[in-house]
């Protein structure tokens, strides 16, 4: 069975959930080989984790020559690996960085590229959600090695024991790939809440919060949810851009999305319309968000949310 390369999404060796989703999807196309960019010391620990989801091999690429520069070195390393193993496909978690890596890799390999897939079937046909979630598109790479970036929450991770054989891969990075230097990195402070794009439940706040996110955060915590924000809330400086849900922020597709004080402009819809269940709380009964909801409350989030939070906490005892 031919290899399918799966690029591991991780922070300092801590493997993120979309990696397991991708390994699950990769098994439909062939035998998954995970690709780890990181320090070789972490390789074995990472291999132990990804083999539980079917990784037969784990290529460890020492990122000492890679991590100091933007995007280009990773694309070079993947090109060299792909030329060596001739994979059936290359799958990457759909982060901004990985999409850029995939774009450069597509040119290097002369291969077709599909971004932001929400599903990939056995034949390699992908499903994408486009035009703010108003259309789904089925597409396929018809030339070269399919390179596909896949969004979080596109598959339920299924365990399957793989061999997890660790293999160091030495990539040669050209000077030309070192043109954009990363001079400083500031890790984002953890909020203690789930990652926005990976969370099963997302609770967001918008203009209607008036800048007070405490009710939104309290409600989110009672549900174990991630916190999001509309562009209006971010532009007002109430929340950092990393929390923005919408066209120019994160696209989320959780089981439950709760929009509070958010009118539902196209820019926001584009980021949340494919959520399974949508709930809204808004003072304005005419807000377009109510056209999307499975359940809505016309009311002030500053009274509705704290009361709901209290009831949920009571229920949990």
């Amino acid at each position, binding site marked *: 069975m031919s290899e399918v390369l799966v690029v591991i999404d991780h922070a300092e060796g801590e493997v993120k959930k979309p990696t397991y989703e991708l390994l699950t999807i990769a098994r439909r196309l062939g035998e998954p080989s995970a690709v780890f960019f990181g320090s070789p010391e972490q390789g074995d620990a990472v291999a132990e984790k990804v083999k539980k989801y079917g990784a037969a091999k784990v290529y460890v690429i020492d990122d000492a020559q890679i991590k100091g520069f*933007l*995007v*280009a070195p990773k*694309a070079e390393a993947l090109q060299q690996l792909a030329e060596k193993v001739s994979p059936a496909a290359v799958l990457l978690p759909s982060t*901004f*960085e990985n*999409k*850029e*890596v995939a*774009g*450069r890799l*597509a*040119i*290097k390999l*002369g291969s*077709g*590229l599909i*971004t*932001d897939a929400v599903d990939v079937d056995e034949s390699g046909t992908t499903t994408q*959600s*486009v035009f*703010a979630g108003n*259309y*789904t*598109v*089925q*597409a*396929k790479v018809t*030339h070269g090695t399919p390179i596909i970036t896949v969004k979080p929450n596109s598959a339920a991770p299924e365990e399957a024991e793989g061999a997890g054989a660790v293999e160091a891969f030495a990539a040669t990075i050209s000077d030309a790939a070192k*043109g*954009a*230097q*990363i*001079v400083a*990195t*500031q890790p*984002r402070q953890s909020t203690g809440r789930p990652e926005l794009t990976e969370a099963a439940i997302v609770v967001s706040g918008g203009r209607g919060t008036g800048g007070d996110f405490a009710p939104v955060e309290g409600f989110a915590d009672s549900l174990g949810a991630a916190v999001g924000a509309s562009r209006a809330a971010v532009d007002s400086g109430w929340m950092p*851009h990393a929390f923005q849900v919408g*066209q120019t922020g994160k696209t989320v597709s959780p*089981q*439950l999305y709760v929009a509070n004080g958010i009118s539902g402009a196209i820019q926001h819809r*584009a980021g949340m*319309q494919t959520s399974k269940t*949508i*709930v809204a*709380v808004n003072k304005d*009964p005419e807000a377009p968000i109510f056209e999307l*909801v*499975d*359940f*809505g*409350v*016309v*009311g*002030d989030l500053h009274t*509705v*949310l704290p009361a*709901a939070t209290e009831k*949920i906490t009571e*229920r949990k005892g």
Partner: protein
Amino acid sequence: MNIVVCVKYVPDATADRKFEDDFTVDRVGVDGLLSELDEYAVEQALQFREKREGEEITVTALTVGPEKAVDAVRKALQMGADSGVHVVDDAIAGSDYLGTSLVLAKAIEKIKADTGADLVVCGMASTDASGSVVPAMLAERLAMPQVTLASVVESQGDQVRIKRDNEGSTEVVGATLPIVLSVTDQSGEARYPSFKGIMAAKKKPLETWSLTDLGLDADQVGLSVAYTQVEDTTARPPRTAGEVVTDEDGSGAGALVEFLASKKFI
């Protein structure tokens, strides 16, 4: 010095966007405009020029697209770009990322040969395909450093530094011109064209190039040679509006919690 800013003509996101029978985006039957996210790119290009007042710096706006796509270049000229290039050729229709980035790169190389291309500026994504990959692909094709997804752009002479928000971190990235730069909607509000700017734009040079002008053949780009194929497009059934209750004396919170419990979220 010449700055090339890539701009895209896209179907209006607030209009009823749809696909043609061959599954390509309907770029003619739906009202279009300069992609909002490219306005930030034009803005940063203009600011770069203004910051180095006294030097001879020009800004060329470049688009690839059907006849009407020239509107995107016109808007950039109205905002303050000095000249425009519109690459239009029926054979380009239906190009995927590979084809689009090839045409853009060839056009930039031609501009470079004529007036230079010391800085290429792009928006973070188009508002139609939302891929965010073309700037990286241009950097690859043009063999220029890639400095992308900037939320803050700073420059000193030929040194450019940006702030880039990644999924889990914020990075500061530095490079020396020539580079490909892409900027996000956080990079700074885009200016509106002034009346003077609108009038002046009418007299600015605007060239129209075909594939032949770029040294490309019709069989190198377009739908028929795309490396990806769309098999189907389906309009998502509109979400049926569910129950909406009005909060009276705290009833809203109770109803909300009941709903969440019925769906097993609690």
